[in-house]
């Protein structure tokens, strides 16, 4: 049984206007029928453009918001079925690392206090390491414990957030764009830290990112999202070497050094950038797809198995006329 499993999870938001002005509202389908499974100790990367719903998916997996439909299972518990006290207790076992560490930290509390706060909230969880050890395991000087977040550098702050997430020794961590707010030089250090912690602690994680190069370093598997749907999923190595979905191909082709063996076919996307409030009919990718057929306008393809441990949602793959740039 996987540790975390999303079964047909959908999330709709209402946007625009106030509660009094229902006329001007639109519904945004941030996540539309996502199926995912993360095994113990495994790292799944979720990639896609901004606004494709990957952060929402991450929050749904942690039960931080209820899904509009579908369900999220954590270690056999349906998160939506748990009451809020039970869900809070379960939080000792699942944590979130944020994109912007400065926002995620209380500006008026010393980082030492903040790091141990999860163990104060969950007295039964973790092995209650002292602050100094928690800091040391994320590579921070224990002398920093008395500092406040604004006195630290961006990389140090993110280490503090990671240390806080590690305090209760969780089984599952969602990393939501953990390095995209950092300088490039610091990114590499934080990525190395995350990878080291994964090996040392063996927690399962979902790594949300738009940077495919980062993903290749930390993830075992990758799921590609487009407009709230997972269009392709599989082992990182296989997907990057041989992307099946035209969108994945476009993403990978845009990063030259990602797949040096792959013949460079520049897949250029056309049309408007995706607007999650107005999702096209049929395959949502068809207005921008370089190889769209007539059927793509009307038929939304289901995700089907395509090779070992892989799946893809594309009508051309399903019908056997696989479109491969490097054929």
């Amino acid at each position: 049984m996987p540790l975390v499993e999303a079964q047909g999870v959908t999330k709709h938001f209402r946007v625009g206007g106030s509660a009094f002005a229902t006329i001007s509202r639109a519904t945004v389908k941030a996540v539309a029928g996502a199926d995912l499974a993360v095994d113990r100790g495994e790292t799944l990367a979720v990639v896609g453009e901004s606004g494709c719903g990957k952060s929402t998916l991450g929050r749904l997996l942690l039960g931080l918001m209820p899904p509009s439909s579908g369900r999220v299972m954590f270690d056999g518990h349906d998160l939506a079925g748990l009451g809020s006290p039970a869900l809070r207790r379960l939080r000792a076992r699942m944590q979130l690392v944020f994109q912007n560490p400065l926002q995620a930290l209380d500006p008026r509390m010393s980082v030492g206090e903040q790091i141990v706060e999860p163990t104060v909230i969950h007295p039964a969880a973790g092995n209650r390491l002292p602050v100094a050890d928690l800091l040391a395991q994320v590579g921070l000087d224990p002398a920093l414990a008395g500092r406040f977040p604004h006195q630290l550098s961006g990389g140090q702050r993110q280490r503090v957030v990671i240390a806080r997430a590690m305090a209760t020794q969780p089984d599952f961590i969602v990393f939501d764009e953990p390095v995209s707010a950092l300088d490039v030089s610091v990114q590499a250090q934080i990525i190395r830290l995350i990878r080291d912690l994964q090996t040392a602690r063996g927690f399962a994680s979902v790594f949300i990112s738009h940077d495919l190069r980062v993903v290749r370093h930390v993830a075992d598997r990758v799921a590609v999202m487009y407009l709230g749907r997972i269009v392709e999923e599989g082992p990182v190595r296989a997907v990057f070497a041989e992307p099946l979905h035209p969108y994945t191909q476009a993403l990978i082709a845009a990063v030259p050094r990602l797949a040096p063996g792959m013949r460079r076919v520049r897949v250029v996307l056309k049309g408007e950038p995706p607007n999650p409030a107005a999702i096209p009919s049929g395959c949502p990718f068809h207005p921008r797809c370089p190889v769209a057929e007539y059927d793509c306008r009307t038929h939304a393809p289901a995700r089907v198995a395509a090779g070992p441990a892989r799946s893809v949602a594309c009508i051309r793959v399903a019908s056997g006329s696989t479109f491969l740039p490097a054929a």
Partner: protein
Amino acid sequence: MTSAETAAGTAPGTVAANRRRKRSAFRSMPFSVCLGACWMALMFAAAIAAPWLAPYGYAEQQPLLRLKPPALFGYETPFWLGSDHLGRDVLSRVIHAIRLSIVIAVAGTLIGACVGTAVGMLAARLRGWWEEALMMLVDVQASLPFMIFALTIVAFFGNNFWLLVIIVGLAGWERYARLVRGLVVEAETTGYAAALRAVGADSWRIYRHHILRNITGALLVQMTLNFPETIMIETGLSFLGLGVQPPLTSLGLLISESRNYIAIAWWIALAPSIVAAFTTLSVCVVGDWLRDVSDVRLR
């Protein structure tokens, strides 16, 4: 927890550095702000020590010494700032007026901050329809001059001291509500409160330990910014004869009483006018400066 405390204790330099930064902001205080702060301190001192400072009782009448000019300007009278039409010492009356005006303004400010903070937190916590309804009330209050609201309440419920304190307290509650709601919503959606929920903290812990601590600075600045208005509402109502009632006295009431004698006894108006003007001006200047140097965002 203990480990955090010891760790904090091992790095005293950082806390000191923090303090140094604050101190340097205070050192570069402009002269006008310095003056304003001194005046405010003087007023608070006068308010506390009023019974000992005032040479006469505030209602003590000396019918033979009516409308005497001030000794301060070289006249041969027993009153430093002169006496009024009933032979009461203007200085003593001003000191007692300061006391009452400041007591009402402080109590009112605290009431307003509590009410506004509660409303703002509720709106931010409940979201949805409740938030819309509460913020609508805030908008209504903000779009109407508070004086009208205050007069309406006095009209319908008559006049008494505690009602006055509550009315003064309600002046500006909507600003606290807006400020607090904005800060809390930000913390709850993208900030530390959202992070704490992900960690598993309950609302009580988040509000008690984190949000309250974080909004205190902004609240204090907002209180300073609102203080002049609370004073103006009280003195204004008292000036209109609808606030503090004789024999009690307040700055507005003193100025109102002095109006009839201004042609023959200018000194009755002088002291309360100067005190009222300097006090509101000082608080305004200090409040503006505090807002500028503090890093809190006020809308």
